[in-house]
């Protein structure tokens, strides 16, 4: 009996001793350099300057949010942010050093090294081999990266991939044709296979968590109706579908759309579009839309700001503080025109190294919370004690 008690005490002591380092690791530490990788090549740190593509613009916005504290209504930035530029090699490499005088308090990490122009696959590999601490990875690679030990952080679905029929293109002017193509698309297959279940089939323009009405939009394909509609169109037009030549995910989705359409008897021709190309000469293209706000009205308004010039959709303007019904009707009017065909909602997926702590996935319109991130490990421990 005594021996049993001794053994129990000894076991409790061992567990307590083993738990001490873990408890210690959960306390924020200063120091260390956070290594981050992005796919874009940021050529200028001027936040007001022009960007070659949306990816660069987004990356530039993220960097601006690190080196500036305040974003003015006119889009300019002001006040020093948590970091300052230490080294800058345009388009390749950027090192940000912690701003000791930041009014919100010094960031935990001493510096952030941002490696640019890293392909998604390379970013995943770098995460696996612990060559980087933070990188955004394509949703379809999240599961595999997680299976290989990478810490994966996934946001709510806040990015929409949609097929947009371009206004002014006669080949896409027939609503039956647009509807036929929309009906032929197997969104579930796209989500399950291409996005590897990291996303949701999109029937409307806003996600369910934002609008609460997304379930009202059908997402299932109807090849029979698609075929029926297509047969009503004579002569059969030739539709050219464009996609971003630098985006393999878009290419995969576009190819699947073509296959779905072909099964319904519809012939689509694919064409890769360079992001820098001024003229695409396509009838329809895949468009990525990122929510700028969790508020459905704000998000929808920002979407329309992008879609109106492309697809010519121009629903009645929403009143201030529009009701969910009004937002739904507006959204439905756009979707029913089949000029914009929502395909899938995707989350933001970030891969983190094991030493990254207190990372929170940024929500719609939010920036990377790198000022709050700290690094666990020997490098960071050496810097512990700094204010």
């Amino acid at each position, binding site marked *: 009996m005594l021996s049993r008690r001794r053994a129990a005490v000894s076991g409790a002591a061992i567990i307590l001793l083993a738990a001490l380092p873990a408890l210690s690791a959960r306390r924020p530490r200063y120091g260390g350099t956070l290594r981050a990788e992005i796919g874009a090549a940021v050529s200028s740190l001027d936040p007001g300057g022009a960007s070659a593509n949306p990816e660069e613009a987004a990356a530039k916005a993220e960097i601006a949010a690190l080196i500036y504290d305040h974003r003015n209504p006119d889009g300019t930035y002001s006040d020093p942010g948590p970091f300052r530029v230490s080294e800058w090699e345009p388009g390749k490499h950027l090192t940000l050093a912690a701003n000791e005088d930041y009014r919100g308090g010094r960031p935990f990490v001493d510096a952030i090294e941002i490696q640019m122009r890293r392909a998604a696959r390379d970013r995943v590999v770098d995460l696996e081999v612990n060559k980087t601490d933070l990188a955004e990875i394509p949703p*379809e690679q999240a*599961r*595999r990266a997680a299976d290989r030990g990478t810490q994966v952080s996934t946001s709510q679905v806040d990015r929409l991939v949609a097929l947009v029929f371009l206004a002014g293109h006669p080949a896409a002017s027939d609503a039956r044709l647009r509807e036929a193509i929309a009906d032929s698309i*197997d969104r579930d*297959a796209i989500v*399950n*296979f*291409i996005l*590897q*279940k990291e996303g949701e089939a999109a029937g409307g323009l806003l996600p369910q968590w934002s609008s609460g009405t997304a379930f009202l939009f059908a997402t299932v394909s109807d090849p029979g109706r698609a075929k029926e509609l297509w047969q009503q169109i004579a002569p059969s037009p030739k539709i050219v579908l464009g996609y971003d030549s630098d985006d393999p995910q878009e290419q*995969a989705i576009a*190819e*699947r*759309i*073509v*296959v779905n359409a072909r*099964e319904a008897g519809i012939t689509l021709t*694919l064409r890769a579009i360079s992001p820098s190309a001024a003229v695409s000469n396509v009838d329809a293209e895949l468009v990525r839309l990122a929510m700028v706000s969790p508020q459905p009205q704000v998000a929808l308004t920002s979407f329309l700001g992008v879609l109106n010039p492309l697809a010519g959709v121009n629903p009645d303007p929403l009143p201030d503080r529009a009701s969910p019904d009004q937002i739904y009707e507006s959204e439905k009017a756009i979707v029913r025109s089949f000029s914009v065909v929502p395909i899938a909602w995707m989350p933001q997926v970030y891969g983190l190294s094991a030493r990254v702590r207190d990372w929170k996935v940024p929500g719609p319109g939010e920036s990377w919370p790198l000022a709050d991130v700290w690094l666990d490990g020997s490098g960071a421990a050496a810097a512990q004690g700094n204010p």
Partner: protein
Amino acid sequence: MTFRAKLFWIFTLALVLSVGLIATGVTIAARKAFDESNRQHSDALVAQFQREFERRGQDVARRVQGIANAEGTVRMAIDLARPQADVSVYVSDARGVAQSYQLDFLDFVGNDGSIISSAENPARFGYKMDWVTKGADEKPIDWAAQGPFLTKLDTEAGPALALMAVSRVRVGDKDLYIVGGQKLGKEFLASLVLPAGMRALLYLNLDPNFQPANLIDVSGSVDQAQRFASFIDRVEQQPAEQTFTIDWTADPKSAEVFHALPLRGRQNELLGILLVGNSQREVVILERRIQILAIVAVAVGIFIALLLSWWGAARVTRPIRKLADAARGVTEGNWSARVDVRGGGEVGQLARAFNQMTQQLVEQRERLLQAERVAAWRELARRLAHELKNPLFPLQTTVENLRRAKEQNPEQFEEVFRESTGILLAEIENLKTIVARFSNFAKMPQPELGSVNLNEVVRSVVKLFEAQFGAVGRPPITPELHLEEGLPTIQADQALLHRAVENLVLNAMDAMPAGGVLMLRTTHQNGNVKLEISDTGTGLTPEECDRLFTPYYTTKQHGTGLGLAIVQSVVSDHGGRIAVESESGVGTSFHIELPGKPPQRPQVFPMVFEKKAEE
């Protein structure tokens, strides 16, 4: 055409034909050899293609089997065999595996025939590929026994032909199919080692009708592909190996012979056609060279044939020409002509026979001359005896009358003597006349040539005998003159001609004791003038005709037999000819032909008269 010329042309023709036949034979043989070579080249390339096709197929099968045996594939099969298996995690696996195994096509197909992952068409995940799981008979296919096969696949770039193989990984009762293959296209054609001048084309039978874009070569496209349309259609209608030729331009060198090999799929359907092209450029150039060589050879052969023919004909005809010359010499009277031919053979025998013949002719001629001479002398003796007997009888009678008168009637002797001497003198004069006549014939003068119109000669002779034609007491003779106007003059002795015509007219008058028609006709031909004198007398027998011109031969009671001999002598001295034709009871015609200008020597019957002259 001379015998030599004939021989020359026969030899030439024979040699030219021989050379031509040989050249044609060589050309035909060369063409056959080239055709055979082309066929062998095509067969070799087709065999190479089939070997390469088989090797590629085996290679594809090995690769697919390698994928099936790979750890990752086995794990996938195990994973997919679980209930509620998530196939989505494998959706992008095929592309990487296909690249690793260097396959153009790779599909992982689940137990239900759904595509799990596709390398060539990643977006086709979830769609069915039923032909993998079951055959046309709805039964599972034994892919291990099936082996590689050719099939048509739908790719993002459109339909394509591929060499495919299928392997199966079975876990429990679930199958995972690995469908892999390599595209049959320009890369495959580029792997074929082609001899110079040959090329391989591949028609991908992907559309119901001929599509030029489906015909490819190593560059991916074929110029003027539409030219193949009819041939491709033909092979599609009759899917068997065929050969056809395309003339790209009017130049034969541009021609290209194609051997078409149908390529079939698992269901024996026609999926493609391999076209092995063999340029005829080198063949045509070689054939032309051979033709030029043949033409040169024929030309040289003809030249040599001409020389050989000329030489051969000359060699062969030399003894014959000698024979001909000798025969001509014999014809011209050179009876001593001999042919000097050495060697045997028919020509030698002929020459020897000719020499023997001329020898015999000379001997026979000598004998004949001897006989004729004897006969002539006999005839002369007979004529002389006959001619001399007539005067001698009165001489004998007169002399006997003188002797009898002197013995029996001396008183009348003076008167008898006077009368007898007169008779004797008359008969002696008669004998002298007879002797003079014979002497005159022996002394026939040589013609003194001058311009003579034969018509005038004829007219003068007829005029001379006009009185006798209608003389009282004898039946009349009607002369008929058919003298050609414009008869050319000839070089002749007018007196001799006059004498000859006179003799013939006299002869005709003697032949018509009961009267008749005497016809004299003159004509001319080729510069010669002709005279025909015909009577309607009793005619002559053939034997008489043969001896008619023999001197001292006569059919008349009181003839000397010199008249026609003189005529023949005159005609002969003028280089002319005389002939007679006669029919008993109808009449006789003499034909004389005289040259415009007589030759230096008489050519007709020279020997007779020369011999006569010599005698």
